């Protein structure tokens, strides 16, 4: 059992050494980041506290709204975790370069599975936890929860994080194993496509366009009740968390122990099934993935010709840089998954705007507030995408940066190239 702890030790030490390094490098920057995180927590806590209090003041229907919101958020957490775990498990189980080092040592595959599962859980869940903590804290505060509520939070959340991770790693391993060796990289396209189909069916199932006016209390209550109905499916782990938490908030007698037990049993079962499957297929899947070196689309002469044609009007230096950037971007298989998921989110965003009639907002101020918040959201998404794609393109040139620095390309030319190649796709 101790082996898997040793297997994640390098990651823990890396995190610790990074933290210490960052603190030594610039205490101000370090404290700034810490304050930002604490500030974010405080803002989320205060926002939800205010919203929950104002709903609660409406009486029983307000409580219904609050608990509908809780059920909705837990459901969103669950599907977010599932999506994020699928992407993370591809990295931790198949792309990680240290697997070559680990698998050449006398380590059992069970231990590798446990260690990689823990890594996957951490990578995909920290952001959900970071957001969930102040959100659930606000519920505890507003409903004056006892200590048992706060104690039940980790007891409910640990298995809640484990279940989607174990399911996602299982799916990833099976899919890679099903693909023939040269085509294993297609998994990066197939998995997000399956997720996109799942999201589509979820939206069609909920039919939000049939929900009435969102800006009236009955309309909002109807909308929440649709979600509440969907999230109350007894097979959903988010429902088990919901049931155990509302019982402890004192609003429903319920059986929190039963639902906590269900969560732990399901988590244990999914991990055991995952371990069994991993023992049978992980090594072969990993070895097959190593053999699947073919690049998708971007390796085809058609793609090369298309790039050549599109970039022909550019000066030769810029053209070389643009072609190189686009080829390396599309050959990084994980970017495909991100692009597909991004496309799904953008489609959902537009769909929401097309089906909700914001002109029905009760006053001019609210109508404009929605538009204003929309602009803010677009800005936020643009910044997030820039940080995720454009900033990294410049800041992480790493070892290959010598090619640029030793060639007759001015830093200004290089930076302008990065600016334009990032700006054009961002504008879409």
């Amino acid at each position, binding site marked *: 059992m101790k082996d898997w702890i040793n*297997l994640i030790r390098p990651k823990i030490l890396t995190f610790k050494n990074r933290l210490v390094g960052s603190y030594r490098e610039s205490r101000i920057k370090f404290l700034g980041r810490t304050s930002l995180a604490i500030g974010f927590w405080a803002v989320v806590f205060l926002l939800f506290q205010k919203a929950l209090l104002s709903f609660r003041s409406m009486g029983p229907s307000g409580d219904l709204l609050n608990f509908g919101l809780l059920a909705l958020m837990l459901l969103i957490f669950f599907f977010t975790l599932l999506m994020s775990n699928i992407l993370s498990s591809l990295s931790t189980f198949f792309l990680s370069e240290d697997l*070559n*080092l680990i*698998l050449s040592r*006398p380590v059992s595959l069970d231990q590798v599975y446990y260690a990689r599962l823990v890594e996957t859980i951490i990578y995909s869940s920290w952001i959900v936890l970071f957001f969930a903590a102040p959100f659930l804290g606000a519920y505890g505060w507003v409903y004056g929860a006892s200590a048992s509520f706060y104690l039940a939070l980790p007891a409910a959340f640990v298995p809640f994080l484990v279940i989607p991770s174990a399911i996602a790693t299982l799916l990833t391993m099976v899919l890679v194993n099903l693909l023939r060796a040269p085509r294993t990289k297609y998994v990066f396209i197939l998995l997000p496509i399956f997720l996109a189909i799942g999201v589509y069916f979820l939206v069609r199932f909920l039919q939000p366009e049939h929900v009435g006016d969102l800006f009236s209390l009955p309309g909002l209550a109807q909308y929440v009740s649709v979600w509440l109905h969907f999230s109350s499916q007894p097979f959903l782990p988010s429902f088990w968390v919901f049931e155990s938490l509302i019982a402890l908030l004192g609003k429903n007698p319920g059986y929190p122990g039963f639902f906590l037990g269900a969560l732990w049993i399901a988590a244990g079962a999914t991990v055991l099934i995952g371990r069994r499957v991993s023992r049978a297929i992980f090594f072969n899947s990993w070895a097959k993935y*190593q053999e699947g070196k073919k690049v998708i689309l971007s390796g085809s002469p058609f793609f090369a010709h298309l790039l050549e044609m599109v970039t022909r009007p550019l000066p030769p230096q810029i053209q070389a840089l643009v072609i190189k950037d686009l080829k390396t971007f599309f050959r990084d298989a994980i970017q495909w998954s991100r692009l597909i998921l991004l496309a799904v989110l953008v489609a959902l965003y537009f769909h929401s705007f097309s089906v909700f009639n914001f002109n029905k907002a009760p006053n001019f101020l609210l109508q404009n507030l929605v538009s204003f918040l929309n602009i803010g959201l677009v800005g936020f998404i643009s910044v997030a995408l820039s940080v995720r794609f454009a900033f990294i393109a410049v800041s992480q040139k790493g070892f290959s940066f010598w090619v640029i620095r030793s060639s007759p390309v001015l830093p200004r030319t290089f930076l302008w190239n990065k600016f334009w190649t990032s700006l054009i796709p961002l504008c879409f």
Partner: protein
Amino acid sequence: MIELFQLGKNYGDFCAVKGLTLQVQQGEIFGLLGPNSAGKTTIIRMMAGLIRPTSGRILLGGKDPAREPEKAKAILGYIPDRPYLYEKLTGEEFLEFIAGLHRLNTEDGWKARSADLLELFDLHLWRRELIESYSHGMRQRLIITAALLHRPKILIVDEPIIGLDPKGARLVRNLFKNLAKGGMTIFLSTHTLGIAEELCERIGILQRGQIIALGTLEELRELAKIEDRQLEPLFLKLTGEEEKQDP
């Protein structure tokens, strides 16, 4: 002792290794030479248990890495051509991690061995520095230290002296000779013909996944019908690269 029986590996339609049969005795240093893409790294990765053979069998000290991976890997030291190192770990932390992978306890004396190896490779003053600050040669020396930490019976090396300065290269050559004298079986793949010439008791020349010549340097010379004492002309003649060497 290393035994390969009718070993084969296909990548789709491409045959990387074809029916390779070979035995390396305990305490022997065996060198595998071959032009690029001959299949050397594929053979080494199969021996290290990182890929499974399509056909045939490997036995390392009597253990098959495909059937008993943990037992086979426990007696194996592996130095890859492109090793992975955790940049944000110190050399000492990395070795502690490797000791953990081999389940070495303090009673096994791995700490003393680690200190000795770090001293031998001039890394002791750097042991508490992050690996990201190590030079290429220091990284290679750390990898060799990590491969020897658990006192393996078999050492598999893919390009042993890449990035080492002349002093480091000599150190490694002498170390390999001493380890082999102590009973360690060493299987190395290299492009550095001088290393093979100096260290290896037998040499196998691999081309397109098949051994085309195998024996001592003297036997290979006879096979190629060449008088030159150097390995380079012999290698070029046997692999048919002789005619293409000069532009």
